[in-house]
């Protein structure tokens, strides 16, 4: 059932996920359902474990290097976890097809927005938000590629919190990893350096996934035989990705993010229009 090629694909999922702050579900779910022929519910269970594997393996490096902002993650996790809870409770009352179309349009707009800023290495002229100052969220990290310490301010505290709430709700409603929206929220509304956005998203996605993961495990929706090789592949890929992150320009991450946004937008449009 499991071939070397699919294992390599799981490594790729961990690699891409760790660099872009995503859970890798966009790679894991199609492989598990289309290539391995597994039922979608078991595939979602496997994907949730994949998210936590990506998060834990890469965040250990990102937190140590100070690229992931632990304090900011804590503040925003309040929004993503409550959002996911609200989303899960609303799931049976909201038509998910219409929502998928709305989400697709949001992603298309974000792709356009990010494409316009594709060459921006670091944000400039960011005014510190008073609440961020109070919670001491402004921080700095050492950028290996630039060979210098990058000081950054945090702004858009309420807009960022709102987007994280939305990210949580959508992940609860649509069952997709909300890493993408987390990165977009931090990049667009809070104007953080791209590496801080993807690394902090990596730290946060594990928490949002963990709450539902325990439920999935308790109800036999996580198959250890299926999930074990996925987790192992993800561990390897995420460790490689987090080692590579320091050596590549932020602008590359931004450019890599745009086609991923477009891909998910098209997938969501398809799901919304064809069920």
């Amino acid at each position: 059932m499991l071939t070397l090629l699919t294992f390599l694909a799981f490594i790729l999922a961990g690699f891409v996920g760790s660099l872009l702050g995503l859970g890798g579900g966009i790679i894991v779910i199609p492989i598990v359902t289309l290539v391995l022929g597994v039922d979608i519910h078991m595939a979602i269970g496997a994907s949730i474990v994949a998210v936590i594997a990506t998060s834990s393996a890469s965040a250990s490096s990102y937190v140590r290097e100070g690229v992931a902002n632990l304090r900011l993650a804590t503040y925003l996790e309040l929004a993503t976890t409550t959002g996911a809870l609200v989303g899960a409770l609303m799931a049976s009352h909201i038509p998910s097809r219409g929502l998928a179309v709305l989400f697709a349009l949001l992603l298309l707009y974000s792709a356009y927005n990010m494409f316009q800023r594709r060459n921006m290495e670091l944000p400039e002229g960011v005014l510190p938000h008073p609440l961020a100052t109070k919670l001491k969220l402004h921080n700095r990290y050492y950028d290996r590629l630039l060979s210098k310490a990058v000081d950054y301010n945090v702004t858009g505290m309420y807009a960022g919190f709102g987007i994280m709430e939305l990210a949580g709700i959508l992940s609860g409603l649509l069952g997709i990893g909300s890493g993408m929206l987390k990165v977009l929220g931090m990049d667009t509304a809070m104007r953080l350096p791209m590496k801080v956005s993807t690394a902090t998203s990596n730290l946060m996605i594990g928490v949002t996934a963990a709450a539902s993961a325990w439920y999935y495990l308790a109800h036999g929706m996580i198959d250890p035989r299926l999930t074990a090789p996925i987790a192992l592949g993800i561990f390897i890929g995420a460790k490689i990705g987090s080692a590579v992150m320091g050596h590549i320009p932020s602008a590359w991450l931004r450019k890599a993010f745009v086609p991923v946004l477009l891909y998910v937008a098209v997938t969501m449009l398809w799901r919304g229009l064809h069920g």
Partner: protein
Amino acid sequence: MSLEPQNPEEAYYRKLEARVANFLWVGTIVSAVLIAGGLALSFFEGPHAKNLSPVSPHDIWFGLRAMHPVAYETLGIIVLLALPVVRVAIGSVGFFRRREVQLGAIALAVLGVMVVSFALGAAHHG
């Protein structure tokens, strides 16, 4: 590479980051070793054992003693799922110890929401 702290507060915070990073690193290794061990054992197992799927602590314990691959894989996955929860708890304790009540309380609230999510999920579908 991380930066030299500029004041005692930043030094404390860097230590907290190091604690969180070490915890995630060790946890990931433990999980990976258990999962890899399970996968390695599965090459030697007989066909009769394929569908055994332990979820209770009792089954996992006996599975581990019997060198059953699924027990090792399941334990590896359980360790993995516990990592984000414990990480938030470590953060909360770290913030409270520095008398950063707001962030400590936020982290505690996040833990609470995770517990409620699990409980409600169980109530809804259980």
